């Protein structure tokens, strides 16, 4: 049965390989998008302006995944992290790495529309820094910030505001185009609602990624 499956797989891939035309026509949409959105990073302007529906549903998928991981893990017992073993040098470096990741998060998120970056990248950068700190220094201290900064409330509020901004951009595209064309091309404030959307998506992705990783660490006892 396995051999039949592999033969079918290879046949399908051969068909794909030989029917694929690598020298097909290449569309040239960059100039149109640039004229419309007036933001230097074309990828950001595509996924936060011209294909915004995609991004909305992407955020919904991410939220549902975080929810699914949390609810599926709810039946498993929580491992205690009292015996977490750390090394002194790693503790020092992981603290500075967390601080660096916060700075990088702010840079990547605010400059997402004029340089490589954006909300998803920023959120993952921040979550990586904090999870590394939690794994190498003190997981309990790392998870304390969840209550101090009220991350869960922040996550839900940012989700609502993302929906509100998306609705504004989708329903009134002309008004948003006017906001975009006012500031000079390439400056930080030239993005209209796009930098704000990036910040909110960054917070959302960070909260979701931290929730999922902390669930994995808590329930499986990786410490």
């Amino acid at each position, binding site marked *: 049965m*396995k051999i039949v*499956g*592999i033969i079918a*797989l*290879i046949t399908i*891939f051969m068909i*794909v*390989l030989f029917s*694929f035309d*690598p*020298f097909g026509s*290449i*569309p*040239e*949409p*960059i*100039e149109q*998008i*640039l004229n419309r959105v007036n933001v*230097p*990073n*074309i*990828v950001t302007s*595509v*996924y936060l302006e011209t*294909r915004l529906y*995609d*991004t909305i*549903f*992407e955020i919904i*998928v*991410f939220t*549902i*995944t975080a929810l*699914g*991981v949390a609810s*599926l*893990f709810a*039946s*498993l017992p929580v491992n205690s992290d009292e015996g977490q073993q750390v090394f002194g040098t790693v503790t020092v470096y992981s603290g500075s790495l967390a601080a660096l990741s916060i700075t990088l998060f702010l840079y990547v998120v605010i400059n997402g529309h*004029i*340089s*490589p970056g954006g909300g*998803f990248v920023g959120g993952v950068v921040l979550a990586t820094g904090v999870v590394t700190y939690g794994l190498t220094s003190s997981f309990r201290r790392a998870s304390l910030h969840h209550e101090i900064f009220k991350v869960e409330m922040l996550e839900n509020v940012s989700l609502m505001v993302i929906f509100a901004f998306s609705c504004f951009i989708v329903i009134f595209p002309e008004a948003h185009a006017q906001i975009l064309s006012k500031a000079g091309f390439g400056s930080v404030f030239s993005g209209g609602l796009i930098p704000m959307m990036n910040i909110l998506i960054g917070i959302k992705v960070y909260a979701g990624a931290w929730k*999922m990783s902390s669930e*994995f660490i808590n*329930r*499986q006892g990786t410490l």
Partner: protein
Amino acid sequence: MTGILVIYFSIIGMLVGAVGMILSKNIIKKILSLGIVETSINLMYTGISARGGIIPPIIGGDFSNAVYADPIPQAVIITGIVISFALLCLSLVFAIIIYNKYHTMNVETIEMIFEREEK
């Protein structure tokens, strides 16, 4: 030229991942193979966008359409990356739940346990 080479390599990567998914008996190895397939698909889209040029589509001073990479596949694959991440996360959670219930990661052993439970 680079883009076309990358596309062919990504198709080979997809084949390797799919064969791995069929052949391996361990659930974690199956999930890792799925990860290889997803990464190959991301690579394929990057290759498709690099057919016209390989400079990142961030417009600086002077604008010339021919040298920049196509931004549309890059923006589309962001969705793919997030969904593949979600899929990997949820399948790992299911793997953990299966391990806690049956204490094995081998699919054939799990099937045997199922058949025994049905009888």
